[in-house]
């Protein structure tokens, strides 16, 4: 397979809006007129604003017509790469297809044109959808109650940790530490620290799994709980989860299960049956709503009975077919977001769950696992697998065996030249030069085969022609970016 030919002609080198017309046109073509500055000679109007605060010259708005502005942004959008363009195996992010049915349902006027300030009796359909979604999530996860309010995964984590804190406080049991395995998502220690806890890292075994004996060593009455992801970030099922949870519960701690990787478990296994006390759902990952570019997300949080009093307010209730908000929950951790959460995301997740049904969700998880294992087996002779046994929904390769002058970053950049979004790199931290691939259930065998072919070719290039990797990408609108300068000296505004 060869990289696609060099494409020119319809790839624009798009300048900034401010640089489109470097010289002011003699006749302004502005799509809109700005009023003359109040302090200028042209203005006759008296003003109550102090004159020092009034401008003397017109603002420097680029002199552009509406079609020019429209084309500028349309062209920029063509530089974007999303799951609608091609394969997006970004490990840990579950970049699955967003079925167009979701969009059709979310566009229904009864969902699209309501306002959160409307009284409950005018939005019964929306409340019913939220109530049913919460019940579906509880059923999928094996939890007793769900709040839809958190706006994203990490927000759900924070809510969960605040509930664990409220639970211990209500029992007069001040605890200060949270245990987190070394394979955790970066958000886990951050959420625990924000909730006021000291984070203690717990090592996983050589098999990449958390062992109950290790957890028991770390557990005492100062530990509020353990936070883990199952399957973990190596794509491995924590097979000792029940014993691990028991070790935590035995000393009075609670278990937080990061639901970020729930895509491997839907309809097959329930975190609630594994001893998990609280979990968040990343609707924007597991339940197919679009989440490129940082949003919008939704991170509902589910709890077992003993944590239910602490759920955020309001909770949506149903009595004799009538839906309402319940604010009267004295032990609640309070309100955690504006209004009731990201409703548009809930509609899409609800549509996905209702369309697939229980059997369909289980099938989706099975296919996600099958796809990841297909990639694992097809690539294991070309890239080193630190944990060679069967994975769940994602698999992690290391840089072991790559020529020393070639890095994981080079490999990822070269994949762009073959037309693929790179996988997650350098995460999880426990794997050297990690390359984390998550294909999701959305991809066909043909797409996976193309990806495999590209990876095999790149592995050959790494040995025979490392320069191709080091100078990649060549077939993107911009080449290798200076990440150090971007992090240290970002230019955040246009300067003349």
């Amino acid at each position, binding site marked *: 397979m060869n990289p696609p030919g060099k494409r020119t002609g319809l790839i624009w080198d798009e300048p900034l809006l401010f640089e489109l017309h470097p010289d002011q046109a003699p006749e302004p073509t502005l799509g809109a007129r700005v009023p003359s500055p109040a302090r200028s000679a042209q203005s006759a109007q008296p003003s109550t604003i102090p004159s020092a605060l009034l401008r003397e010259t017109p603002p420097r708005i680029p002199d552009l017509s509406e079609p020019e502005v429209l084309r500028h942004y349309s062209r920029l959008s063509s530089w974007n790469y999303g799951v609608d363009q091609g394969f997006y195996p970004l490990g840990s992010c579950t970049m699955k297809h967003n079925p167009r049915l979701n969009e059709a349902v979310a566009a229904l006027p009864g969902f699209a044109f309501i306002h959160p300030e409307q009284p409950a009796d005018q939005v019964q359909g929306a409340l019913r959808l939220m109530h049913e979604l919460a019940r579906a999530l509880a059923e999928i996860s094996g939890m007793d109650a769900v709040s839809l309010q958190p706006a994203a995964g990490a927000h759900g984590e924070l809510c969960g940790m605040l509930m664990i804190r409220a639970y211990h406080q209500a029992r007069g049991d001040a605890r200060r530490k949270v245990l987190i395995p070394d394979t955790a998502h*970066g958000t886990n220690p951050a959420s625990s620290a924000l909730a006021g806890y000291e984070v203690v890292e717990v090592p996983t075994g050589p098999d990449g799994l958390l062992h109950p004996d290790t957890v028991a060593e770390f557990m005492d009455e100062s530990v509020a709980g353990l936070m883990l992801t199952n399957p973990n970030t190596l794509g491995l099922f924590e097979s000792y989860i029940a014993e691990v949870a028991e070790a935590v519960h035995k000393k009075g701690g609670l278990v937080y299960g990061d639901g970020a990787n729930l895509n491997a478990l839907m309809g097959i296994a329930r975190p609630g049956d594994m001893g998990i006390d609280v979990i968040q759902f990343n609707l924007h990952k597991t339940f197919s709503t679009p989440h490129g570019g940082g949003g919008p997300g939704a991170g509902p949080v589910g709890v077992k009975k003993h944590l239910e009093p602490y759920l955020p307010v309001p909770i949506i209730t149903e009595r004799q077919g009538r839906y309402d908000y319940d604010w009267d929950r004295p032990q609640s951790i309070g309100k955690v977001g504006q209004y009731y959460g990201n409703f548009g995301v809930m509609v899409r997740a609800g549509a996905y769950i209702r369309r697939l049904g229980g059997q369909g969700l289980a099938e989706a998880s099975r296919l996600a696992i099958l796809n990841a294992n297909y990639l694992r087996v097809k690539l294991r002779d070309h890239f080193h697998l630190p944990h060679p046994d069967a994975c769940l929904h994602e698999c992690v390769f290391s840089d072991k065996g790559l020529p020393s002058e070639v890095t994981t970053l080079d490999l990822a950049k070269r994949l762009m030249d073959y037309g693929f979004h790179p996988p997650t790199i*350098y*995460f999880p*931290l426990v794997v*050297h030069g990690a390359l984390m691939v998550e294909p999701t259930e959305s991809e066909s065998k043909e797409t996976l085969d193309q990806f495999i072919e590209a990876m095999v070719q790149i592995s050959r290039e790494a040995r025979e022609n490392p320069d191709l990797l080091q100078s990649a990408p060549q077939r993107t609108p911009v080449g290798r970016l200076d*990440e*150090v300068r971007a*992090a*240290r000296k970002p230019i955040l505004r246009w300067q003349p």
Partner: protein
Amino acid sequence: MDFPNDLKYSRSHEWVRVEGSEAVVGLTDYAQEELGDIVYIELPEEGGEVEKETAFGVVESVKATEDLFSPVSGKVVEVNSPLDDSPEMVNEDPYGDGWLIRLEMTDQDEIKELMNAEQYHAYVEAESD
């Protein structure tokens, strides 16, 4: 990779140079190489206390963000403040201009628990396997 013989090393990849009752702490050549280009370093206030094997700061690179752990306990008498503007010094000169903090040690016996250059070299070899 360079591991000078006059330094002591921790399992979390910090080095210590003992100067009387004081200890200068930095990141090893191996650590800076693993992190890649460093973009930001957060160091403690002068006068603060740090405890052995607990985090005293944060290092952020293009690859990852990691805690900095102190190999020994003590009071921070000086921090390498030029790193605020030039964190790349840790990449360029990890044992020289890229030092992190200087401590007045509270328990000099803690030094004995650290590795020497030879032991650290073997430790790094085993870890990168």
